Structure formats: structure tokens, C-alpha cells
């Protein structure tokens, strides 16, 4: 039987997210979904789930969770401070990038999310209903997740059905976390780069912008050298379609990076748009960080996306059974028939 998670404390802003709500943007419904779908895929792979399975997206400060009943296999993707307090009161740090099966009474105390965003996946996913084709939380329309809001104390998260996923014979781990590309954030200019002066464009691609405290799942306000609008065009356009990754600049000339929960249309000129391959990196920007932008060609953007898909597959292929310290290769000692019985009995657990 799949176990159940009870939320003891929701943390700063913990939401349930999957691959997002596609196909409803013409009705004004935001895409939503994981800010970093790559780490979502990693967390899910560690527990044997398909890449897009709904998981907990944690930002700033994580939640406190208790296994209320049954047992649950879960895994963390990201850099976070996590304390595991077993039901026998033994306490230890929970390492990321490794799956573990927890039992009723075990408590996870997730503290600072140092990587800006982190994901906690549960084998079988979280059993909440799909709304408009997705389980992603979308606060503005109060849909998805739990009542369309961030998790809070008292929420019950039923683990999904283990029968629909591959049950892991043993915990999985990876030698290293999935690492994102580094260097400037790559963009394609436009769609309204012609609304800005030549100087503004030169400044945008040559100076660093600072991430402000004004950031949420809709977008990130940056501060830095002012982006002056072309006097003939002005700072307002007739609203048109936008997308996560679009970089708009209102009259104050300070850029705003749009993220997964952004509106579907907008009336500020967009100087450039982040390429698909670099969208997951935006999830990890924290106040005070510096960010640079660089133009690439469409062909380079395409190559980067292909390379990223391949790198993710390679990372997932690199998952290996977790062997705790003192682990003895009993298969080699006693033969395969014996060890299979022992794995089923759960002795290979951390």
C-alpha cells in the first residue's frame, strides 16, 4: 500500500508541480509546472517515476513532513538542508540525489533551499486530481495541487499508486547531482528588440543585472543599467502573447524575467527571450546574484536543447543501486537466488 505524507509545516512556498498545463493559454491559463523540469525529472528517476510525475517544488525554506501511514520511497533533487528523524528518534542528514524508503512516524525537516529550488519526488507521485490536464498548482485560478495553493500545515498528501510505476528493488543513487550549464543566460533577441535604443541593446548584452528580492513563480525583477525605449516606440505595446523566459522592460527600463506562472499576454516590450535550454537555470537565481545575457543563434539554441536532453538521459542512465557503508556483495558470496530473497526482505535499505 502506498503511504501518506502529512504536512507539519508548509515551509515558505512549497507547491505541487508537474510538467505544467498545456493547451489552455488562449483562455488566459498560465503554463505553470516545475520551474526546473530537469531536476523534477532527476528526482522522479531516483524513485522510478516517469519524468513528468507531480512532485513537491520547494523554494526558499522547505516544509516539515511526516510519513503518516504506510511506507514511501522518496528522493530529493537539489541542494537543501534536510534532517531525517526516524520514528526511533535517530536523526541524520538526508543526502540529495538518492532514494530512500521511509516508514510511518519518520519526519523530514527540510530547511534552507540553497539551490533556489529543489524537488522532493515520491514513488508513484502524489495522488491529487488533475485539473485541465495537469496537477500543477496555479494559485491565480486556484487550481491544481491542493486547492490551488501552497502546502500548509495539516495537508495530507497521499502517495500515488505504486502499481503504476516500477517498484524499485533497491534505493538508487547517482555519483553527482545533475549540473546545469554555466556562463551567461542565452537568449534570442526579440520579439520587440526594436522598441529599444541601440545603446540599450548594447548595454543589455554587456552588463550584469542583479536579481532583486521581487521574485516569485510569475517572474523575477532585475535591477541594473536602464534599458531606454526607442523614443518613437515608447514603453507600451498593444498586448501580445508572452511565454516563460521572455524578458520585458516597462517604462522604468528595469528588466523582468517571466517564469512558469506568468500571464499569457503582456503589454511591455520584450527585449529578448531566454532559450528553452536555459529556462531551468532561471529557477536557481537568488536575490543578489548577478546575471549576464548573451545572444545565440536559433541553431545554437536548438543544439543546446538537444544536448541537454541527451545529458539528462545520460544522467538517468548513470543511476546505480545505493550501497550503504559496510555493504557486502552477498550475491557474490552466496549466489543470486539468496540475495533476491534478501532484497525483497528489505535488508538492502539505508
Amino acid at each position, binding site marked *: 500500500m502506498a503511504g501518506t505524507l502529512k504536512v507539519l509545516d508548509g515551509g515558505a512556498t512549497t507547491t505541487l508541480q508537474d510538467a505544467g498545463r498545456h493547451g489552455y493559454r488562449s*483562455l*488566459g491559463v498560465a503554463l505553470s509546472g516545475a520551474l526546473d523540469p530537469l531536476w523534477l525529472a532527476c528526482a522522479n528517476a531516483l524513485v522510478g517515476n516517469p519524468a513528468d510525475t507531480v512532485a513537491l517544488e520547494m523554494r526558499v525554506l522547505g516544509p516539515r513532513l511526516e510519513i503518516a501511514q504506510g511506507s514511501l520511497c522518496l528522493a530529493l533533487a537539489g541542494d537543501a538542508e534536510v534532517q531525517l528523524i526516524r520514528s526511533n528518534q535517530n536523526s541524520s542528514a538526508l543526502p540529495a540525489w538518492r532514494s530512500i524508503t521511509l516508514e510511518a512516524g519518520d519526519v523530514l525537516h527540510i530547511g534552507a533551499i540553497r539551490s533556489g529550488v529543489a524537488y522532493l519526488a515520491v514513488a508513484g507521485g502524489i495522488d491529487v486530481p488533475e485539473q485541465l490536464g495537469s496537477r500543477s498548482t496555479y494559485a491565480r485560478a486556484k487550481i491544481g495541487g491542493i486547492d490551488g495553493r501552497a502546502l500548509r500545515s495539516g495537508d495530507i498528501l497521499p502517495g500515488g499508486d505504486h502499481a503504476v510505476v516500477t517498484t524499485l528493488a533497491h534505493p538508487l543513487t547517482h555519483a553527482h547531482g545533475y549540473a546545469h550549464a554555466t556562463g551567461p543566460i542565452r537568449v534570442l533577441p*526579440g520579439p520587440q528588440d526594436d522598441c529599444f535604443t541601440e545603446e540599450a541593446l548594447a548595454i543589455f548584452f554587456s552588463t550584469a543585472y542583479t536579481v532583486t528580492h521581487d521574485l516569485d513563480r510569475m517572474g523575477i525583477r532585475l535591477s541594473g543599467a536602464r534599458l531606454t525605449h526607442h523614443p518613437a516606440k515608447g514603453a507600451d505595446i498593444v498586448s501580445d502573447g508572452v511565454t516563460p523566459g521572455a524578458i520585458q522592460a516597462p517604462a522604468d527600463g528595469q528588466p523582468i524575467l517571466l517564469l512558469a506562472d506568468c500571464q499569457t499576454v503582456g503589454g511591455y516590450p520584450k527585449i529578448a527571450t531566454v532559450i528553452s535550454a536555459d529556462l531551468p537555470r532561471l529557477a536557481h537565481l537568488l536575490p543578489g546574484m548577478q546575471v549576464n545575457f548573451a545572444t545565440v543563434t*536559433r541553431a545554437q539554441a536548438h543544439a543546446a536543447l538537444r544536448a541537454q536532453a541527451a545529458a539528462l538521459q545520460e544522467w538517468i542512465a548513470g543511476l546505480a543501486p545505493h550501497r550503504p557503508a559496510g555493504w557486502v556483495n552477498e550475491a557474490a558470496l552466496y549466489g543470486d537466488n539468496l540475495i533476491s530473497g534478501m532484497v525483497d526482505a528489505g535488508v538492502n535499505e539505508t
Partner: protein
Amino acid sequence: MTNSPLVTPRLLPLGDAAWSVEFGDSIDPSLHARVMGFAQSLKNLQAENALPGVSEWVPSFRSLTVYFDPLQTDAEQLAATLLRVAGDSTEVVAHGRRWRIPVCFGGAGGPDLDDLARASGLDTDAMIARMTSTVFHVYMLGFMPGFPYMGGLPPEFSLPRLATPRKSVAARSLAVTGNLCAIYPWESPGGWRLLGRTPVNLFDAADSRRPALFAPGDTAMWQAIDAETFHSMEAEAARGQLDRAQFLVAEGSPWPVR
């Protein structure tokens, strides 16, 4: 509709996974009719599986944005297809559904009605008469799910947004600003001028086929109702018993005369 010469559409890149096709740079019914004509052509193409990797598109006032998966679609080839189809698309008017939506004007739900009437030189009754004899048409949905940006507001009611937006606008408020009219689907902050409220829900996530009441290209007229009718219809809606289909105007039939 006049036979205005067809403007040549412009293609703009919105990153590596979307193209915007732009027909002009103003809010204008005939430009929007081109947008809706293009949307119709795309729908036909998709029905023939001629748009591989295209996930969705968003019509707006004067342009249409097409979203695609760059790993499944040759972006340049799609661009050429979009420009060709957009260039051939003609104006489509009144292509959507027609609605007659009940609105309770004035009172607590319409705090700006009297001000707007005064500014236009009409008395309040005459203003309501003018609002309920006007056909509005939905340019696009945005800002929040189901929020319709509608054109057709009589020019005498054109006022800028409030200098200080309200912290809270009630759900289902009928609002105007500039030459636009809209209804707020949910309670939200907002700077538009509020004329009244409708008991009809604008967005229902449980209806996955048609979650939003309005779609781009729809047209609507308002029907004045009194406070008592408003409250009883609102209660019906809260129980999930207010069938939205009853507010549709049958195809082919004329707009009801007040």
C-alpha cells in the same frame, strides 16, 4: 466589413519555441478579424496534422502567437508555413459564439456607474440603455484565466484607469477602461471602472472542454437585471445549477431587442 487591403503579416521570434505573427500595431476590429481568420486556418491545418509539434496558439488584439516544441518542429519551416497561411488568411467576423449575459448595474457592485454616466453627459438610465444595446466582442483572454478583453465600448464612456487601482475588485465585476470592456472572473486588484456585476461564472476548471465562458472571437450583449434576480441567479451558480448555455443566443437568430 470593408475590403481594406490586406496588410502583410510580420513574423517575430518569441524565443526558440514560439513565433508571433503580427498583423498591425493597434486595437482594431478588422485587424482582429484577420487574427481570427488566421486562427481558423491554423485549426484547419492542425485537423489535417499539418502542424507537427505545435502545441497551442494564443490570439491577441493584433497578433497571434504559436507555441511549438523545437525538438519536434523545424522552426524555420514552421515560420514559412505561418507567414504563407497568415498572408492568405482573410477577415473572419462573428466567428465565435454569441452571448446575452445578465448584469446587475450600479449599487455596491457598480460603484463607478454614476461617475461614468456623468462624464458622458447621460443620466444613469440612459447609460445603462446604451450599454445594453451595444454588442461587445472578445479580442482575447488574458491577465487571469477567462478574463475577456472586449472591444466595442461606446466612445463617450472612454475614461483612463483609476489613478489608484482598487485593492480588491469583486469577482464577476463588469468593468471598462479606454475603449475596452471586461469582466473580472475572480476577486483581484484592479484599476478599471466598475459598472455592475454578473451572476455568471466566467471560468470553471471542472469543465475541461470549455473552462472559460468566453473565447476570442465571441460577441456579447448585456442584459440588465435587478438585484433580486442577481442574488437568486448567483445562488443558483454557487450550487452549480446555473447552466451557462441558457445565455447563448441561437445561431442565425438576430440579437434580442431590449
